[in-house]
Every structure is written in structure tokens, then in C-alpha cells.
């Protein structure tokens, strides 16, 4: 098997912009990553960093107008999804690439039974009859661990709890055995205990079915638990692309470092959490140099001047930061963001809940 075959999804230089009356919002601005067969890639970042738009771009479901994919390639099993017609795309959606969303409470149609909603996906993509699709739907409910699936299939969404509904969403997504599952904050809206159950279920099903997963999340706990590779996004760009162990042990980008410092750790007795000062720049009004420079504790003049590239370090780790370049060694301007300001913002937690 060559390298191409192993990569289910390759995203190259993806740019999704929003065009409104008087401005262009660069929600996704040059994103690259790969997902291997059966592997889980986490996309991490604060609200508004473009991670949800990245996932909708892969599905070609960016609300349009005002959104538009303006550049890049999305290679799914070697074929560029951006070249496909709407008709061809429909055959991919729900069949080869599926998606589950953050809000299980509102993501199911209130006027149809959950069985019908699962069966619909099967009927569309597998040419199955009504009866056959229904039976398969019940099987899927069983697979996602729904108790008494025959009975549940006949219920409408309002009769189910949030966790149950998310199981139904997973059943819909996996009904046609897709090669890639995009999970957009699948546990954010759920209770903590249910979150763990859903994540375990996803991992279990991934092992059984061999599905590759793109896990969109702001929660580094979810990343630690489920992901193999991680892409950290900031203001529409990938700033660090690494494997999960390196991410936690040896973060390369100051933003990643900041994210990690802002999580409370049970084994360390820290009085105050460290916050990343300031806030995410508006995608319609981005700084000139490195996008993180205004908030970066290490930023020097160079960082404010020009945007670093996503450069490969050792192995598959890539980082978009001047600190890891040759230029940095020659840079001798002072650190621009002084420490006092950083301290004054201490104690305010930083990364945000909610979707982007």
C-alpha cells in the first residue's frame, strides 16, 4: 500500500471566506492536514478559529451565500471533493463521509421518528427497501448501545434524552459505514458523565468499523482521550500539527502552550490558571504578522512584521512559529509584549466553550 492509499483525507491550503456587504471574513484561511485510514485527527482551537467551518467545508455544507470555498483542495481517497457536482457530493455525504453535530437536542427532525431518520440515510445510499432499511436502523440503534432499540426506533426525538439523541445521531452517521466521520464537538452539549460514554462509544465503533474520525473540539481532554494526531487552529490557520503525545509533552507553538497552561491539572497544585491574554482577533480584521503575535508572550518585532509558514520540524510535526526557524536565532529585538500585562490578566481562563 502506498502512502496515498493510507490517507483517507488530505486537505491542502483550504480557504473558506465569508462575503458580507462591506467586508470579507476569512474563517478558514489556508488549512492543511491529513487523516489516515482508521486514525483520529483532532482539530483544536478557541471559538471562532474556523474549526467548524473547516468541517462544513469538507462536507461542502458551508452556508452559501455568504460563505464560499475560495481556494484549496480536499482530497478524499485521492479525489478532489471541490471538483464534484452537487449530485456527486450527495452520494458522498452520509455515505462515505458522515458528520455528527454539537447540538443533539436540535439536530434531529422533531416530526419524524428516530427510526425513520436513520432508515432514510440507508434508503438513500444503499438502495434498500422500506422494511430492510427499518431493520437496519434498529440494528444501528442496537450497535450504538440504545436499550430496547425496537421500541426506541418508533419514538420521536422529543421522547429521548440528549445522550440518547447523540447516540441516534451516531447511528445515522454510521448507518452506511462511512470511511470518514466528522464529529463537530460531539460531547460539548452533554453532561460530563454522558460525554465519557459517547466518547467511549465512538472509540469502540471506530475499532469495529475502522472509520477515520476528524474530531473537532475545544476540549483538550477529549483530544487526550480520543485523538492520534492533532491540528491546533488559530484564526483560520493551522498553527501546530502534531501527534497527541508530543502535543501534551512538548508543545511547540506558544498558543498550544497557552492552551495547555490554562487547563487545571489535578496532580499539580496551582493557585491560579494561566490565561492567554487578550482575545482571538476577528477573522475580518487580522493582524499583519503572526496572527498570535499580539497575544504571544515571546513575540518580537519579527513576529509583528510577517507571518511564519507552517514548517516541518522532526518527523510529522509542523509548527507555524518564528521561534522554530533560523531567522529567530538572528532576531535580537526585545520581546514586545511585556510581562506585567500578561500577569494582570492572570486568573481569567481563556479558551472558549461553544462552537465557532
Amino acid at each position, binding site marked *: 500500500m502506498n502512502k496515498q492509499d493510507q490517507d483517507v483525507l488530505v486537505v491542502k491550503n483550504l480557504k473558506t471566506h465569508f462575503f458580507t456587504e462591506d467586508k470579507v471574513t476569512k474563517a478558514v484561511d489556508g488549512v492543511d492536514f491529513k487523516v489516515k485510514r482508521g486514525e483520529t485527527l483532532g482539530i483544536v482551537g*478557541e471559538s471562532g478559529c474556523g474549526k467548524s467551518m473547516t468541517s462544513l467545508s469538507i462536507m461542502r455544507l458551508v452556508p452559501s451565500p455568504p460563505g464560499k470555498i475560495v481556494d484549496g483542495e480536499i482530497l478524499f481517497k485521492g479525489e478532489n471533493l471541490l471538483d464534484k457536482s452537487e449530485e456527486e457530493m450527495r452520494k458522498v455525504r452520509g455515505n462515505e463521509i458522515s458528520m455528527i453535530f454539537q447540538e443533539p437536542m436540535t439536530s434531529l427532525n422533531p416530526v419524524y421518528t428516530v427510526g425513520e431518520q436513520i432508515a432514510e440515510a440507508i434508503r438513500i445510499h444503499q438502495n434498500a427497501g422500506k422494511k430492510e432499511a427499518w431493520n437496519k436502523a434498529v440494528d444501528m440503534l442496537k450497535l450504538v448501545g440504545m436499550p430496547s432499540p425496537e421500541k426506541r426506533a418508533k419514538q420521536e426525538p422529543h421522547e429521548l434524552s440528549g445522550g440518547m439523541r447523540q447516540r441516534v445521531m451516531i447511528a445515522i452517521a454510521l448507518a452506511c459505514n462511512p470511511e470518514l466521520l466528522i464529529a463537530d464537538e460531539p460531547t*460539548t452539549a452533554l453532561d460530563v458523565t454522558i460525554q465519557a460514554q459517547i466518547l467511549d462509544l465512538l472509540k469502540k465503533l471506530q475499532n469495529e468499523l475502522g472509520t477515520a474520525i476528524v474530531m473537532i473540539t*475545544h*476540549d483538550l481532554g477529549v483530544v487526550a482521550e480520543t485523538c492520534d494526531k492533532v491540528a491546533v487552529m488559530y484564526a483560520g490557520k493551522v498553527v501546530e500539527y502534531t501527534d497527541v503525545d508530543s502535543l501534551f509533552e512538548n508543545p511547540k507553538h506558544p498558543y498550544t502552550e497557552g492552551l495547555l497552561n490554562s487547563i*487545571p491539572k489535578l496532580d499539580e497544585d496551582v493557585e491560579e490558571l494561566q490565561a492567554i491574554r*487578550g482575545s482571538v482577533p476577528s477573522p475580518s480584521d487580522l493582524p499583519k504578522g503572526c496572527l498570535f503575535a499580539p497575544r504571544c508572550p515571546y513575540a518580537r518585532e519579527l513576529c509583528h512584521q510577517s507571518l511564519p509558514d507552517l514548517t516541518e520540524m522532526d518527523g510529522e510535526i509542523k509548527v507555524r512559529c518564528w521561534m522554530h526557524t533560523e531567522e529567530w536565532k538572528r532576531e535580537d529585538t526585545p520581546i514586545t509584549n511585556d510581562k506585567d500585562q500578561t500577569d494582570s490578566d492572570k486568573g*481569567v*481562563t481563556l*479558551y472558549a*466553550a461553544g462552537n465557532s
Partner: protein
Amino acid sequence: MSNQAVKMDNQPSLQAPKKIKPSHPKVERWKAFYKQLKKNKMAMAGGAIILFYLILAVAAPVIAPYDPLAIDLGNKLATPSWEHWMGTDDKGRDILSRILYGAQLSLGVGVVSVSIGAFFGIILGLFAGYYGKWIDTFISRFIDVLLAFPGILLALAIISALGPSMINVMIAVGIFSIPTFARIVRGSTLSVKKMEYVDAIRSLGANDFKIIFVHILPNILSPVIVQGTLRLATAILTAAGLSFLGMGAQPPTPEWGAMLSSGRNFLWQAPHLATFPGLAIATIVLGFNLFGDGLRDALDPRLKQ
């Protein structure tokens, strides 16, 4: 873990943007409102239509080419011409002049009846919303009863008792408008009542009367204004309908509905008799509907799609 995450929107930004000192908040609000409204082309068109008819109504005695009641039997049922732009009716009266004077009547009836409806509706709604309990139950039931009469029937019932006349049409259409205002005011009062400032004012010793009319009423005026505008459209339409049925203005009054009614008998020989008054009603009602929709969008952006 995610529970520890806190929205960062509220974080103090690094440099506070320097703002020009705003004028009085009320002035600012009206400016913003006017800006919104100006953007809405449909609303501006509606406003223009209303203004147009207002001018016609006020200037009718000056600009009307003929006496609206002057009979000229030698020139009856004349088709539109240079002398009579809209032709003449079955008694030879100039239709354009009658339409111009009719604008006075239609606007007048609309404004008076909506004012009657708004006055009683606002009072009922304020009392129901502010006092709640049995007063609310009683008023709400009363409103339910008024709403149980479909459409124009309540107005018809009232007129059947009072007898047909323009004054009675205003009263009937006014009563017909009460429920709409009462419901909206009640709802808004309920939500304003819960706000903290009302408690604050009460703790300062203001009495109910002052709280209701000085502190609550001004805060619920926007939906009332929107409803009033839209209701003007309905009122004009209903009043014209009543006159058409012979329950309002009587011939030879130049009322548009009554003109339509008599023009109806000449649909074959002279269709313009029925055409122009109808167009007049339709355009003025359209004007109020357009303007009302626009006001709603500008005053309450939440309702805008």
C-alpha cells in the same frame, strides 16, 4: 474539563476604543431607528404613499377641480378625459374631486377609529398586564369575547344597533380595534413589569398610576406604534367595506366605499366608477401596510428575518 472553560468575550480588551461622546440615549435610539428605516425601500415607499394621500386630503379644497357634490346630469357617466381625469359618476359629479375629498374621510375615519381602539386597548392592556390576577382574567376574557366575532361582524353588529352613519362606523371600527391593542400592550406590560427598574421606582414610593403611565407606557410604545400603523390599514379597509354595504357614509358623501357601491350598478356601462375608488383604497392601505412592516423591522429587529 470543558466546564471550566469560560467565554472570553467579556475579557477586557487591550485598548478600549475611544468613542465620541454620544448624545442623549433617546436621540441616539431614534437616529438608529431612522437609519434602519431609511434602508428599507419598501417602508420608504409606504411612507411616501401615506404622505401623498395626506397632502391630497389636506389640499383637497384647493386642488380639487370641481365641487365633489356638484351634479351635472348633462355630463353623467363620462369616461376619463382632460376635463375629468377620472370621468364622472352617474350624477355627473367629478370622480377625481370626489376621490380627493374621500381621502379626507378615509384618513379621518382611520385615524379616529384607531385612536379610539388604541386608547381603550392600551388602558385595558396596561391594567391587565400590570395588576394581573382577576383583573387580568376579566379583561382577557372580555378581549376573547370581542375576538370571537369574526372579522367585520362585530362592527356590523354595533352598527345594526346604532344605525348607519360615519360616526357610528368610527365607533364600531374603533371597538373592533380594541382587542389587537389590548393584547399587545398586555404582553409588553407583563415583560416590562418584571424589569428591575420598575421595582426600583416602586421602592422610591411611586404609586401605581405613576408607574403605569409614566414608567411603563413609554417603554411599550414601539409595538403600539407598529400595530397602530398596520391597524390603520385594516381600519380604512373595514370602514370602506361598511360604507360599501350601506352601513356607513350615505350617498352622495364622497366616501370611497360608498362610491364603489354606487359605481357597482354601472359596471357594464362605466367601469371607471368602481375602478378608481377601489384603487384609491388599495393604494392607501398598501401604504400603511408597507410602512407598518418597515416600522416593525426597524423598531424591533428581532422580528426581522
